[in-house]
């Protein structure tokens, strides 16, 4: 009787909680008193969850042996980490190293005559496929890049660098499906993002501004002074003019942020400064070129700063300097980094510290990261598990948690899984790239897709992706389900499962389909470890990092 009363009260309380519960994602409130600090193994797990695509079996021990700060130091200097095994796994993906001009040659555009014949019914789709097979189509470039991203996330030792490549690609997003970006996208990551991902922020802005992928994606390659007449090519004799697309996103999304204090007038002036920054023979060479004839030579005023007439190509360089040295940029970039590594709503005091580092180091990325990784906010208990994994982070972390490996083929399957859960790689159409806030990724359909991926992965349904579940539970008696479960929880969620999850999983052990009976039904013979592992991967705890 008493227990019933208590249960009723608890229910009522639960309801009250429900009626007042905030539905915003778990974001740590700004605490007046400092929250307790995460220490010990829990701290190592936290660091691994934030600086890598999730801990693999044995990572905790490795970091413990090396010491957390030594391990972080090493990740901040990726060039000192040997990653030849990953490079070998990527060897078969030949488009990864292909210069743009070669990609344009290797993957020719479909012959318009062929397309016309298919449209008129003269040629069947089958014939078209034979004449123009999938592996000769430019889509292969993005497919291989997706596979490479998955392979690197799962196997690279330079984990922090991979995290940063992902972050900066989304920051300077281009959409692999837009026009000539199909041929440029792999070179874009290789030439404009990866070399500077752990370098200086202004270099990223410069590299992306010059890259044909960005010039094409945000249309700057076509932007010209208002009275420009196209001198040659299919548009010969046509009047071209200013295009504001890149100028606006450069300020709104790449540097100052939307509240960075620029006006429509600044957008137009910046667009004028970048006129003439274009692509040389986009369908055969695809190289940056400055065409003085397209350039608006007049004076420009950007954010109150005067760029004198006649600057030519340097106008754009000058704009990048003004923007990357602006305090709004320091704050905008600091916020982005703190959001990735600490919380969806990052603590303002930390953002200020990181912005100060930006200003004092001219945007040195490892220095800003160090500021975060040495801050009390990063190690605060509020930050622990506060981030919800993006779909791709979830996919990669699941493979890693199960001790998995993948080859390039498996990478393609993992990329498709990420798409099912809501994040098709390199396919973000708007220039914002993919969001880094939990509320965007948590929804009914995506949650089911995560569970289905967990089931498929744990039961070995992803060919070319191998998981090592038996190794995870090695030493546990197969006929002692409780021991098996303990091993799994230790291995996959570093023993950080909540009591409710633990209880639910323990109850699952009573299910005959989980704990298989021996043939004579006299007792449990072994445990369906794969299904238990899938449940853990699909559990609420594992969706967080």
């Amino acid at each position: 009787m008493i227990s019933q009363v208590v249960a009723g009260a608890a229910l009522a309380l639960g309801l009250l909680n429900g009626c007042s519960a905030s539905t915003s994602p778990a974001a740590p409130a700004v605490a007046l008193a400092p929250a307790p600090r995460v220490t010990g193994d829990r701290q190592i797990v936290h660091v691994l969850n934030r600086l890598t695509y999730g801990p693999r079996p044995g990572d905790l021990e490795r970091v413990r042996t090396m010491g957390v700060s030594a391990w972080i130091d090493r990740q901040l200097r990726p060039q000192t980490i040997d990653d030849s095994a990953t490079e070998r796994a990527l060897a078969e993906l030949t488009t990864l190293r292909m210069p743009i001009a070669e990609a344009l040659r290797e993957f020719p555009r479909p012959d318009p005559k062929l397309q016309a014949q298919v449209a008129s019914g003269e040629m069947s789709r089958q014939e078209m496929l034979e004449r123009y097979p999938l592996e000769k189509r430019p889509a292969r470039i993005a497919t291989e890049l997706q596979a490479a991203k998955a392979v690197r996330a799962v196997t690279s030792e330079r984990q922090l660098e991979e995290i940063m490549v992902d972050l900066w690609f989304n920051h300077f997003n281009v959409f692999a499906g837009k026009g000539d970006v199909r041929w440029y996208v792999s070179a874009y990551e290789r030439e404009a993002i990866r070399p500077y991902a752990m370098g200086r922020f202004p270099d990223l802005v410069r590299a992306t501004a010059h890259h044909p992928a960005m010039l094409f994606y945000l249309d700057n390659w076509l932007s010209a002074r208002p009275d420009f007449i196209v001198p040659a090519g299919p548009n010969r004799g046509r009047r071209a003019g200013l295009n504001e697309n890149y100028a606006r996103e450069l300020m709104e999304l790449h540097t100052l942020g939307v509240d960075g204090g620029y006006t429509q007038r600044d957008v137009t002036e910046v667009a004028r400064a970048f006129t003439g920054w274009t692509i040389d023979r986009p369908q055969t060479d695809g190289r940056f070129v400055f065409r003085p004839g397209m350039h608006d030579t007049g004076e420009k005023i950007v954010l109150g700063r005067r760029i004198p007439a006649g600057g030519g190509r340097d106008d754009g360089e000058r704009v990048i300097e003004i923007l990357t040295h602006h305090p709004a940029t320091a704050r905008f970039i600091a916020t982005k980094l703190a959001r990735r590594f600490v919380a969806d709503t990052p603590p303002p005091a930390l953002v200020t510290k990181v912005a100060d580092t930006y200003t004092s180091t001219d945007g040195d990325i490892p220095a800003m990261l160090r500021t975060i990784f040495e801050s009390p906010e990063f190690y605060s208990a509020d930050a622990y598990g506060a981030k919800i994994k993006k779909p791709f982070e979830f996919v990669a972390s699941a493979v890693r948690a199960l001790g998995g490996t993948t080859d390039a083929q498996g990478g393609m399957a993992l990329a498709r899984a990420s798409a099912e859960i809501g994040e098709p790689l390199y396919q973000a159409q708007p220039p914002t790239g993919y969001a880094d806030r939990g509320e965007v990724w948590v929804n009914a359909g995506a949650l089911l897709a995560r569970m289905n991926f967990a089931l498929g992965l744990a039961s070995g349904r992803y060919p070319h992706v191998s998981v090592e579940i038996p190794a995870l539970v090695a030493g546990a008696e197969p006929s002692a389900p409780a021991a098996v479960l303990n091993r799994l929880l230790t291995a996959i969620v570093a023993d950080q499962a909540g009591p409710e999850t633990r209880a639910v999983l323990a109850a699952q052990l009573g299910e005959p389909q989980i704990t298989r009976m021996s043939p004579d039904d006299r007792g449990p013979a072994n445990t369906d470890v794969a299904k238990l592992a899938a449940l853990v991967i699909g559990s609420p705890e594992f969706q967080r990092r």
Partner: protein
Amino acid sequence: MITRRTFVKAGGCALVAYAGAPRFLFRTAHAAEASGKVLVAVFQRGAVDGLSMVTPHGDPGYAGVRPTIGLQPPGRGESERAVDLDGFFALHPALAPLVPLWSNRALAVVHACGSPDTTRSHFDAQDYMETGTPGEKATADGWLARAVGTRPAKSTPFRAVAIGPALPRALRGGIGAISMQSLERFDVRAGADSTARAGFESLYEQGVRDLLHGTGRETFDAVKMLRSAGAARIAPANGAEYPRVPLGEALRQITQLVKADVGLEVAFADMQGWDTHVGQGAERGQLALRFRDFGAALAAFAQDLGDKMSDVVVLTMSEFGRTVAENGNRGTDHGHATAMLVLGGGVRGGRVYGQWPGLAHHQLFEGRDLAVTTDFRALFAEVATRHLGVPAAPLFPGFRPTQPPLNILA
């Protein structure tokens, strides 16, 4: 404040006793609610060029500002030409599938509609349109979520549904809106083995009250209901053929939910690709291809629903319009006002609503864009209040209409 829990949606404290019980009564519980009204919001992301969607061919300023991308005036018997609506406006020729709906007065247009906020950022403007609070970034929930939240509670997880990979801002905020990419794949796929589904369900049933657990619980309610209603197996009716594009797929699945009587009140779908800075085209071309899919999807939706369309209103929207003059690349840059469509039961269609601001230079907003004469909140509020019977004030806090109602819905 409505919570995410289904049992509270079912009517609050009276149902608390069922909270721990299996939710087995959906079929009977929702049957009584089946005759409800449905509002479908379709977002054209990227800022659609309203001047091409619904062309003001009667405005003397139109032809001159768009030498290569302007539409020819409607010509009788010319199938490639824009379709005249009222002597002043014409529908883009690729939207021809919508003409029958216009003719039988199921389709109305609101032109020069947009936001009082002047941002030309896609992302801010989309946020403002979805939260319903232009200029106010701190708003956590969406206007459609608030619309559902003000209606009487119902025992279905399908009150608000978005078809797509993520829950749009417009539906966020404590009503337990569902988003899914596909009805067919909306289940735990473990073959005959039911323990996996049960296991996952218990994992999200227990534990703390946060976004993940709340979403998880609603997900399993929805899975069960969808399965018992057999929604994914309902085929298009009346010979409707959807274009094979995401918007077509989304609208087709919304009709499945409508027909399955799962208690749908608000649905959301979006379509990308309207940001036509370069090579926009005129009667043909890039934008025309978008219109072709957009128009075909909306027309198939109306055809498929047939008589049920009398309970449904479709409202299309876009974050802003595009520059009146074409830019240097035969495209258009970010502008201000655009055109929106209202389609369905109770719509007083066959009319273009709103005051036309004109295209002469002095009539333009900041000398370059179509001026806004109808605040999008006036339109949205009118559609929501008249169709769903909800009060306007909570939907658009701080909004005071300055004009008489459009009377676009009877």
